[in-house]
Structure formats: C-alpha cells, structure tokens
C-alpha cells in the first residue's frame, strides 16, 4: 500500500484511453494545484486558469509518464512551469499587470469576485467551510482525531494507528465514518440548492 498506488492505477487507465479516470485525478488534486499556483499569482481566477492549463498539459504528456516519481510530484512540476511562464507573459502586458496591483486587499477581493463569478459563489465557499468545520466539531473525538491527523498532518494509517494506539483497520473505519458524516452535511447543502446555483453560475 502507499507509494502512489491509487494514483498510478488511475494514471494507467488514462494511458489506456480512459478519460474518466483523469476526471478523478483532477477532482483529487484541483484544490492542491490551485493553492500551489497561487504562490505565483494572487488572483484566484488566474490561478484556476493556470491550473486548468497545467492539467491539460499533464494529460497530453501522460504517455511519457512512467511512474518513476509520484503522479502529484510530476503534476506539481508541470504546474510550477506553467505558472512561471504565465507570470512572464503577463509581465509582458503592462496594462493588465498595473491594473490590479494598487492594493493587495482590493486585488484579492477582485480575484475572488472573478473566481466565484457571482456573490452566491462567495457565499458558497464560506458556506462549505462553515459546514465542514461544523461537521468536524460534531464528530466523536476518535473520528475527529483520525480525520484531522490524516488530512491536516498527512499521517499514514499506520502512523495514525500508532498515535491512537489502535489497529490500522480501526483507523480506516474511523476515517471513513468521519468522511461520511461530513459528506452527509455537504450533500444536504448541495441538494438544498446552493451548489446547483454555483454550478449554473
């Protein structure tokens, strides 16, 4: 287990022509990639465009990926190069560059507006954060600890088992149950309409 097995199984499917498997990789890494690109560009909308370009470049280059490194490491390098190139080409167009740099706060706000496109989008982002954090707070202690150690600290199941002094199977079960509890709350919101409004927007 580990050693990028799950990503590799999806990558191999894409390499055999299964485009659906690439969706799973995008869904898994889109947030990480946007966060990474935002080290280079401060505008979330621009970061999203760059991340999109990086994903498409990765898809086209996937036949050359042999699995010598982890998929995310490989994707990471593509995203960094794409972001650097985007910054260079943006700096060559001074009108656009000078427009938004007057104040960091206003620049960031403008970016967020472009990112979400509608005020509902902004509400949704905050709404998701509030729902997830509320659901985590409502979790039993053992489930909360397991999911936080996994998602925030990035510990493996074995490390979590050692930390919590329980079998690995119990860790797997606790993390799954924690996710299910949070996911239930997210689905309620989504089915309530906010998600659909953002999707349409």
């Amino acid at each position, binding site marked *: *287990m*580990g050693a*990028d*097995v*799950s990503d590799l*199984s*999806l990558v*191999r*499917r894409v*390499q*055999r*022509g299964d*485009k*659906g*498997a690439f*969706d*799973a990789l*995008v*869904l*898994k*890494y*889109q*947030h*990480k990639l946007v*966060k990474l690109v935002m080290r280079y560009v401060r505008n*979330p909308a621009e*970061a*999203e465009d760059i*991340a*999109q370009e990086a*994903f*498409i470049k990765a898809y*086209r280059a*996937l*036949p050359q*990926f042999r699995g010598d490194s982890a998929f995310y490491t490989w994707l990471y390098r593509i995203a960094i190069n794409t972001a650097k190139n985007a910054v260079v080409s943006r700096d060559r167009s001074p009108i656009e560059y000078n427009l938004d740099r007057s104040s960091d706060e206003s620049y960031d706000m403008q970016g967020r507006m472009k990112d979400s*496109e509608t005020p509902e*989008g902004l509400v*949704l*982002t905050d709404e*998701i*954060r509030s729902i*997830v954090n509320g659901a985590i707070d409502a979790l039993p202690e053992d489930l909360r600890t397991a999911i936080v150690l*996994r*998602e*925030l600290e990035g510990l493996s*199941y074995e490390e979590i088992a050692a930390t919590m002094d329980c079998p690995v199977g119990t860790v*797997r*079960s606790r*993390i*799954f149950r924690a*996710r*299910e509890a*949070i*996911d239930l709350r*997210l689905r309620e*919101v989504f089915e309530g309409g906010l*998600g659909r409004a*953002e*999707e349409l927007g």
Partner: protein
Amino acid sequence: MNEELESQLSAMFDDELSAAECELLARRLSRDEQLKARWGRYAVIGATIRAERGVRLHAALARKVNTAILAEPALGVSGAPQRALRSGLRWRQAVAGLAVAAGVAAVSVFWLRAEAPLAVAPLTAQLALPVQAFGTTQTAGTTVPARADSYVLPRAPASRPVVVPVTELANYVVAHSMVSSPVARRNLLSAFMTSDPGAAGTEEPLEVATSNAQ
C-alpha cells in the same frame, strides 16, 4: 452503493488500498458518476480542513478540464502502449544484436583453436598451471590464491613440441658423416646426443644409424 465500496473509496483516496483493489476500484470510479462525485467531495473535505482557498463543491475548474479533455484524442491508441511497445522492440533488438556478436566471437575462437592447435594449446596449458606450493597463502585452514606471487611451471621436456623429428636429424648426421672426418663426425654426434638426451636414448633408429656409420 454499499458501505464496503465507500470504505474502499475512502482508503483509496488516502492511498491506503492494495494495488489489486485499486485496479478494480479505479475502473469503477472512472465510470460511476456518483462515486466520482463522492470522491470529489472527499477532496473538498480535505481541502477545507487544510484551509485551502477557493474550495467549491462543483468547481468550474474540474468541469473546464473535463470539457477540454473530451476534445482531446484518447491516449490509448497512439500513446503510451505504442511507445512502450516501441521501446520494448528497441530493447529486444539490442539484446539480439549482442547475442549475434557473442555467437560470432565464440565461433571465431573455436575455429582459431581448431586451425592452430600447436600454437594455442601449449599457451592455454601454461596459463592453466599455477603452482600452489609457492603461489598460495594459508589463512585459518583455507587456501587463498595469492595473485601477485603465482608462478607458471615449465612443461616437461617430453611434452615440448619438436620442430625437427629426431630420426630426420639423426639421418642428417649419418649422411653428413659420409663426407666429414671421424673427429668432426664424433664431435657433432656427441653434441647432438648431449643436446637431446631423452630423444637420443629412446629413438632406436638413431643408435642403428650411428653403428652403421662406425
């Protein structure tokens, strides 16, 4: 969707599922939109816990990438497998080339040995005769060959290749004695006898020839 499948999905998301199970689940994940949506929400949960910015349930990013990828040609037909096949063929060609070269070299060696047995055989015999008495060191009951002090024994004179057969040489001496003086004839004969005593002692025709001459 059953609970075991969802539990496997959660473990796969954390890269904590076995390779075989991952293979099966990856196939299902790529086709099952409901499962994919759940997978996407797991990513949202993680991103929110890590306080990543711009987290959205149905991010426009994934949708845009999906649209762009649909317009791309599928990789399976002209992508990795063919490239892997090409690299595999290249590898096999290199191995076949090496095998042919090794075969030619081996045939050449055998042919040379068959053509010149006198020239090659003594050399190989000499190389195969390291003297253990002087060329080894004994350490804790084990014999370790010492490379720097190894010697090669000279072969026994009887096995040395004779360029001119002894009988021919004896006949020559006898024929020469017909025209030479008795003193010179005796000197030549004694020199011949001392130079190759083994041969002279065993070769019967030599004795016959010398007695005829006297």
